[in-house]
């Protein structure tokens, strides 16, 4: 019998500088994932530049660096960019890359839906920024409360219309991605990959997708009704209508969106801690249960953003209770992470440093969340700098620290090369110090009465705090610069990683770095939720000599 040697399929190695059309038309979940992540990183830099201008303007009382209208456009663009175009997009990208590999699939269930879903994101981003090029972007904050966004108060600008269109497109893309993730995870799991053996990052993606499926449509509905008001003269949210209805619709999306951004982060932490502590995750089942507890609770808390609009006190009491109850499943996850690391043998490389940075700062965001959930205290803290500090502790200290941990963890798999460790250490410490320097003392500004979203202030008592915050924010900018240098440098000439640089637990570490287009030549057997560790211990893991990866 003659043996036929099949040619090895073309890897990505030789595709980057070759036809651009491969990037434009690919349905490969890994290339789409990379495009999601690169898009998100560009947004991160743009949103960060907005933040620096905002911080310069606020660094001293009575500054006139930008005018009031520009300032309002900047804060709106900062919020929209970071929430819609950076964090959500980045976690979608990393899941798009990792989820099919982690469940042992060759691609997403609907590759062409995946393609369309991704390309709607640049459309959404460009639509939003069109506002700047038509003279006036959205200037009512990322929440865009009606009636300030109504025709009567924004007749001069197309910015609100571009924002509404952009968010509608974004919501459609999110619904597509969610459907795709759920189908992939349900239908394309490898033999042996039971639900009880899914990696926790995949469970996190299931919960995130369910959440986005439920709340994406109300967001689009709010934007469509707002556009009806503006373009067709209806009165849904106008001064003669019901402005508070807009807030209900927006926050029914808006609060779960926080969990859309943090649940994948939880998933990444749950993957990284066991690998670096050399211990299995503590309480796998309670981790999964906690995810769904959060999904359920997060849809019953939206009106805690509206404690000052004058609701019945019993209604407020209900939303307060449900909000505080989220501390229970979050607490379970938190203590399980600590218990996983307890007695461990922790190798303090850069990913695990970011994990502990996440734990140390996210805790503060969680605790300040309890203050904000308490209705009486919230009436003081609401719409003040305390809230700004809180949300950055949750979004930056939470999601973004986890994203950095995930990047340092998975970059070797995606590119075949390790990120430079020295630069990584510098990146971590500058981020950690800069972040806490910026946002820890920001709480006190809110307690002393500085409202958010004011473009300038005359109160001299706030000056010292504000200048410290501004200086620290530039330290964050410096850390991002280090990070970008590291990415570019290591992508080209980083140390060769090999298939499994961290001795990982999940299936992505069983394939090459970067993985071939079809992910696995042969899907490894799955016998627990740590399949690759099982193979390593039973000696079945085939260690191929690391190849030198070309670009991507």
């Amino acid at each position, binding site marked *: 019998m003659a043996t036929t040697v099949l040619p090895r399929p073309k890897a990505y190695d030789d595709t980057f500088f070759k036809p651009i059309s491969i990037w434009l038309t690919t349905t490969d979940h890994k290339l789409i994932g990379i495009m999601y992540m690169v898009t998100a990183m560009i947004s991160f830099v743009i949103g960060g530049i907005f933040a620096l201008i905002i911080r310069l303007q606020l660094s001293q009382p*009575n500054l006139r660096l930008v005018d009031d209208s520009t300032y309002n456009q900047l804060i709106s663009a900062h919020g929209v960019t970071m929430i819609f175009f950076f964090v959500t997009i980045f976690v979608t990208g990393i899941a798009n890359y990792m989820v099919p590999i982690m469940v042992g699939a060759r691609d997403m269930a609907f590759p062409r839906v995946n393609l369309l879903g991704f390309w709607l994101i640049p459309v959404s981003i460009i639509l939003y920024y069109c506002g700047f090029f038509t003279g006036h972007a959205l200037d009512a904050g990322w929440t865009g409360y009606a009636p300030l966004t109504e025709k009567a108060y924004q007749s001069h600008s197309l910015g609100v219309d571009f924002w509404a269109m952009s968010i509608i497109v974004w919501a459609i893309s999110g619904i597509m991605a969610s459907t795709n993730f759920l189908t992939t995870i349900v239908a394309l799991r490898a033999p042996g990959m039971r639900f009880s053996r899914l990696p926790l990052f995949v469970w996190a993606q299931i919960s995130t997708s369910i959440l986005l499926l439920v709340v994406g449509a109300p967001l689009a509905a709010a934007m469509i009704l707002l556009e009806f008001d503006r373009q067709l003269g209806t009165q849904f949210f106008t001064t003669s209508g019901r402005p508070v209805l807009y807030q209900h619709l927006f926050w029914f999306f808006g609060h779960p969106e926080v969990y859309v951004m943090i649940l994948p982060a939880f998933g990444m932490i749950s993957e990284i801690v066991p690998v670096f502590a*050399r211990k299995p995750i503590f309480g796998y089942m309670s981790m999964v249960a906690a995810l769904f507890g959060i999904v359920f609770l997060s849809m019953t808390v939206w009106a805690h953003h509206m404690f*000052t609009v*004058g609701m019945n006190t019993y209604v407020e009491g209900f939303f307060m209770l449900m909000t505080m109850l989220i501390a229970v499943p979050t607490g379970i996850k938190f203590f399980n992470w600590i*218990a996983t690391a307890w007695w461990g043998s922790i190798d303090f490389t850069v990913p695990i440093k970011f994990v502990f940075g996440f734990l140390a700062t996210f805790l503060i965001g969680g605790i300040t969340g309890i203050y904000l959930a308490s209705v009486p205290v919230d009436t003081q803290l609401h719409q003040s700098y305390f809230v700004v500090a809180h949300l950055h502790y949750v979004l930056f200290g939470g999601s973004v620290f986890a994203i950095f941990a995930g990047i340092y963890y998975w970059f070797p798999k995606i590119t075949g090369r390790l990120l430079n460790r020295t630069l990584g250490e510098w990146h971590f410490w500058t981020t950690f110090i800069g972040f806490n320097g910026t946002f820890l003392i920001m709480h006190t500004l809110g307690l*002393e009465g500085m*409202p958010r979203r004011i473009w300038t202030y005359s109160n001299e008592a706030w000056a010292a705090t504000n200048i410290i915050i501004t200086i620290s924010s530039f330290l964050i900018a410096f850390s991002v610069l280090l990070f970008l240098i590291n990415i570019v440098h290591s992508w080209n000439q980083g140390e060769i990683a090999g298939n499994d640089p961290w001795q990982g637990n999940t299936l992505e570490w069983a394939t090459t770095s970067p993985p071939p287009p079809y992910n696995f030549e042969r899907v490894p057997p799955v016998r627990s939720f740590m399949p690759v560790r099982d193979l390593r211990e039973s000696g079945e893991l085939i260690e191929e000599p690391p190849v030198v990866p070309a670009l991507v």
Partner: protein
Amino acid sequence: MGRLGAASPGSTGSALLYFHLVTRSARALFTTLGFAALAIALSSCGVGGLSPIFPEPVSPNGQGIYNTYIGISIVAIIVFVGVEAALLWVVLRYRRSTQPAGYVPPQVHGHTGLEIAWTLAPLVIVLAIAGYSFAELQKDFQPISHSQMLVVVSGHQFGWDYEYENGVVVHQEGSLTAEVPAFVVPTNTLVKLQFRGTDVIHSWWVPAISGKTDAVPGYDNFSWLKIDKPGKWRGECAELCGTGHASMQIIVQAMDKSDFDAWMAKQKESGATPSGSPSPSPSK
């Protein structure tokens, strides 16, 4: 050394190593906690706008919020210090670099008792905080019917109008530079505030008095104040309402009853009239 020598050299070494690790970790832990305590002590002096609590409240509802804040803080600080200490312990104690080569940690998959414990502990804590907060909510945030004075506060782009029962109106037009006219109330008088928005949503906030109340077009919101001493307190609009948002300064001034009457008489003389700005048709 003699007694230690009785044990095998290997276990002596690891025992010493363990002792060394524990003392080093503990020292680092206490140093960090010491710095944290110092930081809290420094910041509680309120130097340079770094106060960790609200300004001294001058109205009972503000005092209620202040007390709730302190109550939550006691629990929050305990949880914060406890959990951060646990994290610090893990970081200092379980480093691979300080462990013997080839050390394999115990492969624990979970512990039902512990998991139930750290489900129930946060549950009890948040139920207590929620109950405590709800009691305060019922005490100070219910609509009141027995006020001694009613003032209608209406927010517009960009300023506040305060209409007293006798028709006198204080116009607090927004300004970034100049001092805005004060909204004057008598001391020790329960003043009911009725809020309305005439264009977009605004939010009336004077931190020393109480929390925020939104001025929403279409319906009226209510709050109250009862200031116990004469003085002036500042606030700002807290809901982004357009380009002039930052200019919507608020000044509340409390005067003794006699001073207030004199002030009111002067206002009547100078012919302060109801605001010319359109107000919405009453919804109730």
